[in-house]
């Protein structure tokens, strides 16, 4: 109501009208009374003069008719006048006559003149001074004023009533419809169906406003329905697109997995064959050099594939770490061995400066640690044309449960400018990049290193000077395993292989693999260590062999036509006779840690990740046989 039109327009108008009217009611009667008094005074003076003339005439000419007429006039006058006639005799002033009789006009006038409005006239009667006094009681005058003011009051109350009527009309005809419309407007915006506008049969502005609102409501309703329809279709479209996207993502994941497998499988054959070839002492110096180049290229290709696959996978998820109890010295030695290959047939010296606790056993993701070290070493090798690359590793005991491991890769290479240092670690950024780039690589290595270190709660420090070299380093705080639950995992290639004690001297091996190349390579590698394996080309054939013959070790490829290695594992698990003492290992080109976990969960005792090197087979044999 406070902010209504009625409050803003009608009430102020009404209030102003009342105030003005009250002022008029106070001022006007007062002024009117004064005016009436002045007017009455003049009238009384005229009457007194007329009376004087009449009296004089009456005395002088013995004609009382004028006096009679005056009396009639006074008697018939509604103003209730008093008239007195005095004569000044030698004895004094005497009241000669008065009207009405016995009104004691002169006495009352003398005693309280303020109660009367009066006038007098003097005249001469036979030499005597006569005086006519005409008076009116002020009460009578006030009554006259009241009578005069009454119409004013009537007019005031009529105006007041009209104002109230106008206010009511304003309320019902203007304010209320607008208020209703104003209240309904938010509802109209919120719930088009709920808002109902009253139907007004009016042709004025309010009617036009209501009709406009009704039309607006109808249009909004129509628009709302249209929006709902569009929204529904959009939702369907979004669902469809989401499904498409999910399918695309699934396809991408499947493609990634497939590419990983497809790339690693031939690489496995290459590295394994090259490893076997390297065992031949009769190759000669020249062939050995070619072989070294081939092995290094294979290693580089493996690193490249791993980087690309990791980067692709980590674009949508965080780096997962799979920590296991690991002898520190073994892990570092393995990294030195692998890194050394990078420097074979190179003029650059690869030096190590290792000062660690040889007995330390730490919880670490061995594969990711190696990925970091080899990436940094590979980079150092790539950007160093002369001089040396030094791998410096230190340990420092923090407390009973943790060890600090500091790793530094120091080179005497080209160095990195400050501008490039800021950009280093951005995906696909390469020093000396561009169309005429001098150095090979994807530009993902440092990015991957940073992400792995970040997940390991560490960070990469870089110090570099153009033309003098660079120093990459990081510091890891590694927990030592609890003695009761965690046991060391000493194998390098089979980090997920569970340690197993066996007394078998000539183990019976079954290798299930659909690829003939891989069959040959694996047979060759096993033969290199004096072992023989029965080969099955499919999961079904492998299962049949298992049902017919006794085997101690099963090496099964996972991705095979028709039935996979996982199907074979499921069949084995379903047969209690077969599972018995049989140790089962998955051979897969799928490097995903999640996949390895899936295989272990499926029943495999360990996972051999392709490409499987000769040294990995050696470690496996040492571990399992």
């Amino acid at each position, binding site marked *: 109501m406070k902010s209504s039109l009625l409050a803003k327009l009608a009430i102020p108008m009404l209030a102003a009208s009342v105030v003005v009217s009250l002022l008029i009611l106070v001022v006007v009667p007062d002024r009117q009374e004064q005016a009436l008094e002045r007017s009455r005074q003049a009238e009384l003076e005229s009457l007194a003069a007329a009376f004087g003339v009449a009296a004089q005439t009456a*005395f002088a000419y013995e*004609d009382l008719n004028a006096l009679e007429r005056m*009396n009639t006039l*006074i008697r018939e006058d509604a103003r209730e006048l008093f008239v007195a006639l005095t004569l000044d005799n030698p004895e004094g002033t005497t009241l000669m006559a008065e009207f009405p009789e016995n009104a004691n006009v002169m006495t009352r006038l003398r005693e309280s003149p303020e109660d009367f409005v009066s006038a007098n006239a003097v005249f001469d009667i036979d030499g005597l001074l006569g005086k006519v006094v005409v008076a009116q009681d002020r009460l009578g005058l006030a009554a006259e004023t009241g009578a005069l003011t009454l119409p004013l009051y009537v007019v005031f109350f009529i105006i007041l009533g009209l104002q109230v009527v106008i206010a009511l009309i304003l309320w019902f005809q203007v304010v209320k419809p607008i208020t209703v419309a104003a209240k309904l407007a938010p509802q109209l915006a919120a719930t088009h169906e709920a808002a109902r506008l009253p139907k007004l049969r009016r042709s004025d502005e309010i009617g036009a406003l209501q009709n406009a609102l009704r039309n607006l409501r109808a249009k909004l309703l129509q628009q709302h329905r249209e929006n709902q329809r569009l929204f529904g279709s959009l939702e369907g479209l979004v669902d469809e697109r989401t499904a498409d996207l999910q399918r695309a993502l699934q396809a991408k994941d499947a493609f990634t997995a497939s590419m990983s497998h497809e790339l690693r499988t031939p690489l496995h054959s290459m590295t394994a064959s090259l490893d076997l070839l390297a065992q031949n002492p009769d190759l000669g110096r020249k062939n050995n050099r070619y072989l070294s180049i081939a092995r290094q290229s294979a290693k580089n290709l493996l690193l490249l594939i791993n980087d690309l696959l990791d980067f692709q996978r980590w674009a949508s998820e965080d780096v997962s770490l799979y920590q296991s109890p690991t002898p520190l010295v073994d892990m570092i030695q393995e990294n030195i061995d692998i890194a050394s290959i990078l420097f074979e047939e190179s003029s650059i010296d690869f030096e190590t400066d290792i000062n660690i606790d040889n007995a330390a056993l730490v919880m670490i993701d061995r594969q990711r640690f190696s990925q970091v070290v080899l990436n940094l070493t590979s980079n150092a090798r790539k950007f160093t044309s002369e001089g040396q690359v030094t791998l410096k590793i230190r340990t420092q005991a923090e407390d009973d449960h943790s060890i600090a491991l500091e790793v530094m890769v120091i080179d005497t290479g080209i160095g990195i400018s400050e501008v490039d240092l800021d950009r280093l670690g951005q995906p696909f950024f390469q020093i000396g990049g561009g169309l005429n780039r001098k150095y090979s690589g994807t530009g993902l290595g440092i990015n991957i290193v940073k992400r792995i270190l970040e997940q390991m709660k560490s960070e990469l420090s870089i110090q570099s000077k153009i033309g003098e070299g660079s120093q990459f380093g990081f510091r890891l705080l590694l927990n030592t395993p609890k003695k009761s639950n965690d046991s060391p995992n000493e194998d390098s290639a089979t980090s997920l292989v569970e340690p197993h004690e066996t007394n078998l001297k000539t183990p019976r091996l079954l290798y299930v693999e659909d690829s003939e190349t891989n069959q040959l390579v694996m047979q060759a590698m096993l033969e290199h260590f004096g072992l023989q394996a029965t080969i099955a080309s499919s999961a079904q054939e492998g299962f049949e062999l298992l049902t017919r013959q006794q085997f101690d070790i099963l090496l099964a490829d996972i991705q095979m036509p028709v039935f996979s290695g996982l199907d074979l594992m499921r069949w084995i698990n379903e047969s209690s006779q077969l599972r018995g003492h049989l140790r089962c290992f998955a051979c897969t080109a799928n490097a995903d840690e999640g996949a390895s976990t899936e295989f272990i969960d499926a029943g495999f005792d360990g996972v051999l990740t392709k490409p499987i090197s000769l040294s990995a087979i050696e470690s496996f044999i040492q571990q399992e046989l």
Partner: protein
Amino acid sequence: MQRLAHIAGLVVTLWSAGLCAPVSYAGELFIVAHLPDREAMLDNSELLKILRGKQRNWPSGYGARVALPSRDSEIYDQVSQVLFQSSGSVMQRNWFKLVFAGRANAPVYLDNDADMLQFVTSQPGTVGMVISPSSIEQSDQIVIVKAVE
């Protein structure tokens, strides 16, 4: 001689005044009334009430009109004596008061009996006083009554 002439003049004047006055003023006053239609005759006292301004109308309600001798009339003081037991000026003042107060209609002042009789006979409802009403005759309407105080 001259003093004798003055004395003789004064004696003649006083004689003249003494001779004439008793004749003129020694007569009785009569009330002359012209009764309105169907108005019963009033007695002396009731007619005097009208002449004194104490009764305004005839018993029938017809308005009574009073004719009085003017200051120039011979019976000015005599009438006043009969009506108000005082001089003519007192009569004048009394009637002035009555008319002023509205208790009576204004009287008519006439200078002699002839005018009085003529006025009364011509105006029904009129009451006047004369000293010699012999010039008119009484009738059912015109009544002459001896004025008794």
